[in-house]
């Protein structure tokens, strides 16, 4: 039954103006960044920065708004002969697929036009994974919070934490304990932030060690590229599954 709900949620979102605007924004940004520098690889690095900021923000905010706007509909569905799990999975995959489609068109088409390298493919893979991660996190937040305004606050705080605050905390830790060997600790710390994981994952593919930052360099040295890639991808997958399972657990007993 889940695929049928996915189909209807997907169709509903793809017709909304916000999904179209998101696609257009990504498309214009990517085209612009490729053309400004004149250098494709510089363009890719800029696109990566945009993807790492915008995709989590859009996924969190859009999924949260969608959940609260669909509240009465979810209530109606839960009064039908349907398992709660079916309803939440249907909504989750509907939203995540819709945002992924927008991302694929918005970023995928320009990347395909200007650059057909592995790096480009990795940026697209990272963006798609981040979409699934942050829609899952948004659903977990929305399922746990009854009030819409508070739910939006939670979503924005989470974005602020993962996109901005976390790096500050990591830097603070690294500076405070700089006398100790922190290489392995850094690798562990990266696992706590999906955005850093995605960044490391893409940078490992790029031949720009200067841009890799501490984490990237350490990871390449200690794990090697192949192991580093599987590590980042594996933990990113966990970031999809864990929040989703938690959300399902909470939703199963939730009073609507």
């Amino acid at each position, binding site marked *: *039954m889940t695929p*049928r*709900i996915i189909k*209807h*949620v997907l*169709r*509903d*979102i793809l*017709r*909304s103006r916000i999904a179209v605007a998101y696609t257009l924004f990504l498309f214009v940004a990517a085209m612009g960044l490729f053309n400004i520098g004149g250098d494709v690889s510089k363009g890719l690095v800029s696109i990566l920065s945009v993807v790492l900021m915008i995709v989590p923000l859009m996924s969190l905010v859009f999924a949260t708004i969608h959940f609260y*706007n*669909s*509240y*009465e*509909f979810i*209530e*109606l*569905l*839960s*009064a*039908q*002969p*349907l*398992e*709660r799990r079916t309803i939440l999975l249907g909504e989750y995959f509907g939203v995540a697929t819709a945002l992924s489609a927008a991302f694929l068109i918005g970023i995928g088409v320009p990347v395909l036009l200007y650059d057909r390298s592995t790096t480009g493919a990795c940026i697209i893979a990272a963006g798609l994974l981040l979409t699934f991660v942050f829609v899952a996190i948004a659903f977990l937040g929305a399922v746990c919070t009854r009030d819409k305004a508070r739910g939006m606050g939670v979503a924005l705080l989470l974005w602020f934490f993962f996109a901005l605050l976390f790096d500050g905390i990591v830097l603070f830790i690294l500076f405070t304990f700089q006398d100790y060997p922190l290489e392995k600790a850094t690798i562990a710390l990266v696992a706590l932030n999906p955005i850093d994981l995605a960044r490391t994952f893409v940078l490992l593919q790029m031949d720009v060690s200067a841009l890799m930052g501490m984490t990237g360099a350490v990871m390449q040295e200690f794990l090697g590229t192949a192991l580093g890639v599987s590590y980042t991808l594996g933990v990113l997958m966990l970031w999809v599954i864990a929040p989703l399972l938690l959300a399902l657990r909470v939703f199963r*007993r939730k*009073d*609507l």
Partner: protein
Amino acid sequence: MIEASSITKTFGRLRALDEFSASLQPGHAYSLIGPNGSGKTTFIKCLLGTVIPDSGKLTLSGESLLNNPALRARIGYMPQIGRYPDNMRVAQLFDLLGEIREGSHCGRDEDLMQAFEIDKIASKPMRTLSGGTRQRVSACLAFLFNPDVLVLDEPTAGLDPVSVEVLKEKVISERKKGKLVLLTSHILSDLDEITTDVMFLMEGRLRFSRPIDDLRAETGEEKLGKLIAGLMKGTDQRGAKAP
């Protein structure tokens, strides 16, 4: 047909349902009545599975309704506020619900769809419909799959007088076919003709459930509204007299 025994549901410190017990029979139309916060909505939501009781039993024809989604195929629900995905078209909404209920219903009942001329608005997105039209869609969905139990939450709110009459007639005819109808409404006069039994809730408990004709004969009031007002005063006095 529906048996509720000692259902308790608390929201924080509030006891919305407090050892609530009731027995509902087919062929009757029950009006749930009581002051705000008396547990009407919570009881309906327990029945529909949108609220999960802390304790107690709730059965439909002997089968537990708790943790048993498949049994909900026998219940039709018309919500108080029907909000649907903005860009979903009316026909798609009916398709989706049809797919969900596929194979678990006994025949489709499209009387209301015809009476409300749903086919004329089939291609419109849900967001463009007026509140009343959306209520008509909700009503059609409740009756469409021929369920044994009909739960109508404020069915007349927002409907125009013609639609209210159509809906009332439909409720009466379905009840006469032996279905169980459960209603809530703030506009009591609307329910006079379709109610057979009054269930009066207060502070999360069922105070009484009696045929409306008995109540009329006892209090001498014709209109349900006055009757209830009289009863509420009565309970207050009784409450005051209690030690």
